[in-house]
C-alpha cells in the first residue's frame, strides 16, 4: 500500500470535512474510536457485528470504558435495534472498500451489517483495512462488476462520500440533513 494513495485519500476526505486517522495496530484503532466517542460524550453505540471489529477487541474495550455497545447481530430484534440506532450517539461499521480518489466508502449490506448503523446515528465511524483502499472509482467499479459476475451482489451497496449534506436553501452548504452529520474514518 503506497503512502501516496493514503495521502490522496486523506486529501479527498479533508475536502469533505471528514477526518482520517491512520493507525498501525489494533490497539491504536481501538484507542482512536474510544477517543472519538469520549470526546463527544457518546454513551451508546450501535455497531456492525463485524469480525474485523471483534478481532481488534473493540466491543469489549468500549464496554469496559462504560459505553453501551449494541452489536447488530442477525438474531437481534429488528424493532429494538432500530430504536437503539435511532437513539445511539454513534454507529460503528467496517467498510468493504474505500476509494482514495473521491474519499468514498463502500458498505455492502448483509447479515450483521445492517444499513441503519451508518445512517441513523449522528456520528458514523468506519474502520477500514488498508488493503481495501482502492485508487479510484474505476477500481471500485471493477469490484462491483466482479460481485455481479459471481452472483454476489448484496441487497444494498451504499457508497458514502462524506457526511450527509444539502444545498437546497439558497445553495448554502448545510451538513447533517437526514444521515450522520459527522463521519470519521479509521484506516488500519
Amino acid at each position, binding site marked *: 500500500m503506497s503512502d501516496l494513495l493514503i495521502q490522496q485519500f486523506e486529501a479527498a476526505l479533508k475536502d469533505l470535512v471528514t477526518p482520517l486517522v491512520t493507525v498501525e495496530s489494533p490497539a491504536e484503532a481501538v484507542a482512536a474510536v474510544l477517543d472519538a466517542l469520549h470526546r463527544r460524550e457518546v454513551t451508546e453505540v450501535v455497531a456492525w457485528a463485524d469480525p474485523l471489529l471483534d478481532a481488534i477487541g473493540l466491543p469489549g474495550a468500549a464496554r469496559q470504558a462504560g459505553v453501551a455497545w449494541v452489536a447488530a447481530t*442477525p438474531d437481534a430484534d429488528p424493532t429494538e435495534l432500530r430504536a437503539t440506532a435511532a437513539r445511539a450517539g454513534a454507529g460503528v461499521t467496517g467498510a468493504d472498500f474505500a476509494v482514495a480518489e473521491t474519499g468514498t466508502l463502500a458498505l455492502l449490506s448483509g447479515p450483521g451489517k445492517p444499513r441503519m448503523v451508518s445512517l441513523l446515528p449522528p456520528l458514523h465511524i468506519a474502520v477500514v483495512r488498508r488493503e481495501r483502499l482502492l485508487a479510484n472509482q474505476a477500481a471500485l467499479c471493477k469490484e462491483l462488476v466482479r460481485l455481479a459476475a459471481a452472483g454476489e451482489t448484496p441487497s444494498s451497496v451504499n457508497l458514502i462520500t462524506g457526511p450527509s*449534506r444539502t444545498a437546497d436553501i439558497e445553495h448554502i452548504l448545510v451538513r447533517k440533513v*437526514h444521515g450522520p452529520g459527522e463521519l470519521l474514518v479509521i484506516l488500519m
Partner: protein
Amino acid sequence: MSAMRDRVQRQLEKVSQRTAVAKATRHHYHTRRKQWAKMAEDGRLQSLRDWVRDVKNQALNNNDQVLAQFKASLEARGGHVHFAATAEDAVRQVVEIATAHGARLAVKAKSMASEEIHLNPALEKAGIEPVETDLGEYIVQLAGQPPVHIVGPALHMTRYDVAELFEEKLGEPMSTDPEALTAVARRVLREKFLQADIGITGGNAGIAETGTVVLFTNEGNGRMVTSLPRVMVTVIGLEKMVATWADFEPILTLLPRSATGQNSTVYVSAITGPRRPGEIDGPEELHVIVLDAGRSKLLGTKYQDALRCFRCGACLNCCPVFRQLGGHAYGTTYGGPIGVTITPLMKGFMEHADLLDACSLCGACTEACAVQVPLHHFIRDQKEERAQSAYTSGMERFLFRAWSWAWSSPGRYRLVARLAKWLSRPFTKNGYLTWHPGPLGAWGAGREFPAPAARSLRDRWEELEREVNP
C-alpha cells in the same frame, strides 16, 4: 395568447423568484464547468461522455431485452416488476400496492417520475399521506408547488421564504438560518421515516444484469426510504436502464460531476431486491414500476437520443430562457431544454407545441449536455414540424411565405426596404421607431427598435467600395 405565454407573463412578475433562479443556475453552471475543466485536464471528459452515450444507446436499441432481463433478474431475487404503459397505470399500481398493505404514511425520496405521473394527489385520495423527504422537495410540497428545477426543486425560494413557510405550516419559531431550517426538517422528517409503512423512490439508473435500482442523493433521505419502511416501491422511466454493472461505471462517474459538480454525491445506493435471510433492515417487499408514459414513442425514431438524458440539469442551468424564468413557466414536469424537447414528443405534440417557443436555438444546451443529446437541433426540427402542421395559423404561414418571397430576390428585397423606409418615416424619432406595429409590439415594450437607415448599405455600397478598394 397561448398557455405558455400566459405562464411566462405571470412568471416575469415574480422578481424575487427570478433573481433566486438566476443566482442558483449561475452557481450550478459554474460548478459544473469547473468540474468539467478538471476532467478535460485529466483527458477523460470526452471519453466519459462518449462512454455514457454508447451504453445508453445500446440499452435503448435493445430496450425490450434489457427490460426483460431487469424483470427476470429482480424476480429471481424476490422483487416484483410491473410495466406501466401510461401515467395512470403507474399511479394505479402504486396505490394498489400501498392499499394492499394498509399503508397510511408514505415517505418519498425525490423522484421526477412520480411528479410526472402526479402520484401525490392520488395517494392522498386513497387516504395515504405522502411526505416528500428531500429538503427541496419537502419545501415545495409544503408550499403546494411543483419543483422548479429537476435537481434543485426549491432553488427559486429564498431562506426568508422558507422561514415563513416553516413558521406557517409547521408552527416553528421563525429562523432564517439555513442550518436551523435544515435541523427542523431533520427532526420532523425523522419521525416520518420511522413511522412510514411504505417508501417510494425514483431511480437514477437501473441495472438489468442484477435487477438493481440506483439512487444518487446527498441528504440520506434516499437511504432512509429504502432502508426503513417494510415496503419499497420504485417508479423508474424505462430509459434509465443499462445492461450491466460495467455499463453503470460511466454514469457513476459523470452524473454527479455534471449535476452538482461533486466528484460523487454523498450517497449512491444500489438496491438489489428485498432484504435477504439474516438481514434485519431493508424492505421486506420491493416493487419496481417501469414507466413508459410516452417514452417508447421515441424509440426507433431520430429523437431516440433524447432518451439518453440522465437528468443532471446542466441544460437548465445554461439555458438563457430557463435562467430568466425558472421551471414553473413551462407548466410541465420537465422544464428547460430537455423538457421542451421531450414533452411534445412524449405527451402530445399539439397540446405542448407552445413549449417550443421557450427556446432561442442558441445551442448552449447541446454544448452542456453530458450525454450529447443534440437538444437544440431536436427543438429546431420540432419547430419545423410545427410550422408545417395545423398548429400554425394560416395568417402566420401566409406572412412568412410573403416574407420569404420578398427577401429571396434582390429586386424585391430592394423594393421592400425602400417601402419600409418611406412607411416608417412618420413614426421615426432620433433614429428609432415610436410605434411598433403587429409582432413588434411585444418586442418594443421594453426596447427601442431602430428605424431603417435613411440610406441603406446597398445605397452606400458604391462609395464604400471605393473606400475599401481604393
